[in-house]
């Protein structure tokens, strides 16, 4: 079952637009694209936060950097491949610089410096005319093939699905590689990992850059989905939301990004239709999960089993 899960999910993903069309709910295809793209960014954060153990509170920076790069390039008439390539590259470079600075510190300082560096980018976007200020930048959707553009919901959906599938594949390979072992070891016991001869910080930085790059990739696609980009993509609330998703999905478990994003965006969408007070309920649910099931929704079932074990230790 566990081996089959990725393929079942992929099959479901491939079939989803047809299912939604059959149900007469085509509106949700675009929503599903958004889930897939945000899930890619959240999975990238899971690589940094869940597997690397680094509480990065500025993940929106890399997501937004990808989005803004794509928008600027689109404005100059560049096509999708160029946007993807440069957007990912810019986010990676940014993650390298920010990560390098932040990794000089640990613990609370690390959380705060990642947050502050991302805020810096946010204010840069808000106050810079060439980045569109508060309004952000509009783009026209990139062409795919002939007359087909990403303005087409299905074309966008399958592009997003491809990106998420590739992204998750990359993350899977990285996590299970030698490199991934060292990164996880550093999370569990940093001192010992250094004492085993691994220059911990270098591994953490590379991992940070991989996560940043994937978030940038997601950002490029986000611009294509919405047709514009604005400073809220860079905001600290956005960073907080990414963290929320990873935690809800079960930090450090492979599907955390996808599960958490689907649950949180689904919840927002559903509550948004029912009540305008939806943030209240999102807040209450998040607080409940943090207090009673901090390992994420997936751990709810095993809550009691786990408690027992903790007592023994």
């Amino acid at each position, binding site marked *: 079952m566990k081996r089959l899960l990725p393929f079942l999910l992929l099959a479901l993903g491939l079939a989803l637009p047809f299912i939604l069309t059959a149900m007469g709910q085509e509106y949700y295809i675009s929503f599903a694209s958004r889930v897939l793209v945000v899930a890619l960014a959240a999975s990238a954060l899971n690589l940094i936060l869940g597997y690397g153990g680094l509480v990065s509170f500025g993940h929106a920076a890399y997501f937004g950097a990808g989005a803004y790069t794509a928008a600027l390039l689109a404005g100059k008439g560049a096509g999708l491949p160029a946007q993807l390539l440069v957007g990912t590259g810019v986010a990676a470079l940014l993650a390298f610089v920010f990560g390098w600075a932040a990794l000089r510190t640990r613990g609370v300082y690390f959380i705060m410096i990642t947050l502050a560096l991302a805020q810096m980018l946010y204010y840069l976007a808000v106050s810079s005319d060439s980045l569109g200020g508060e309004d952000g930048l509009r783009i026209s959707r990139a062409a795919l093939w002939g007359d087909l553009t990403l303005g087409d919901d299905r074309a966008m959906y399958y592009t997003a699905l491809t990106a998420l599938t590739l992204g998750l594949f990359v993350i899977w390979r990285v996590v299970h*590689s*030698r490199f991934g*072992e060292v990164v996880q070891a550093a999370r569990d016991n940093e001192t010992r990992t250094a004492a085993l001869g691994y*220059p911990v910080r270098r591994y953490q930085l590379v991992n940070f850059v991989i996560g940043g790059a994937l978030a940038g990739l997601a950002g490029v696609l986000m611009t294509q989905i919405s047709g514009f980009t604005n400073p809220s993509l860079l905001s600290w609330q956005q960073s907080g939301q990414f963290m929320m998703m990873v935690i809800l999905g079960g930090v450090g478990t492979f599907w955390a990004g996808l599960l958490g994003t689907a649950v949180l965006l689904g919840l927002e969408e559903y509550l948004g239709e029912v009540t305008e007070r939806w943030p209240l309920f999102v807040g209450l649910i998040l607080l409940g999960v943090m207090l009673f099931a901090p390992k994420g929704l997936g751990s709810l079932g095993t809550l009691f089993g786990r408690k027992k074990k903790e007592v023994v230790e």
Partner: protein
Amino acid sequence: MAGIQSQSALVAENLCKNFGALAATQNVNLRVEGKGVHALIGPNGAGKTTLVNLLSGALPPSSGRVLLSGQDVSRVDMPGRVARGLSRTYQITSIYPEWTVWRNLALSVQGRSGTSMRFWQPVTGERALYRQAAEIAEEVGLTSRLNAPASDLSHGERKQLDVALALASNPKFLLMDEPMAGLGHEESVRMVDLIRRIAGIRAVLLIEHDMDAVFSLANEVSVLVYGQIIASGTPEAIKNDPEVQRAYLGDDHAA
């Protein structure tokens, strides 16, 4: 100092470490080389663990130098010193409790062959790693526990795993910080045996309170009191040194 002898020695030269007003290490000169056990003893709070931290690179010295095989490594970090053949164990066992013994050891031997900046090949496919891990488990007597999560190990077995992790890099010098602490009699006997085997092919700096173990293992003993080495010599000489007896052995180790 830079004679032929120092080519394969771990040397502390006038090593000092201050924490605020507290001088935890004062002018320590120490030399560990060749094969065998060099024991470092001293009452609680004498600064033994601080000295291990200075030698291993966990702490930078306030002044003085650490030489490793003739090279000044005072400003080299821990991984850098591991690469130059120095490794350590921890007084408070430092392992990866959530991982199996096998995975613990596989991680530790990864560094032996090539770089760990390999992003694509699944590590579970690397049979060589697991074979080497099994060899080390055999060496420390953990073969039967390879598949157990490290958190399930007994205290003694954790100590063995801690030693095994330190051995994985094939160090020329091994710093052992109280490997016998908290062990039962039988476990202690096994650990003494293990240390003897380890010291058969490398230099061990052993910090230990168990005097029977120290005097049965060591070729040389140094005594650390208030951050200073007050005596160094053969176990016999140390046992009979009146100053050592007064400062340390006097209380409950009159023998």
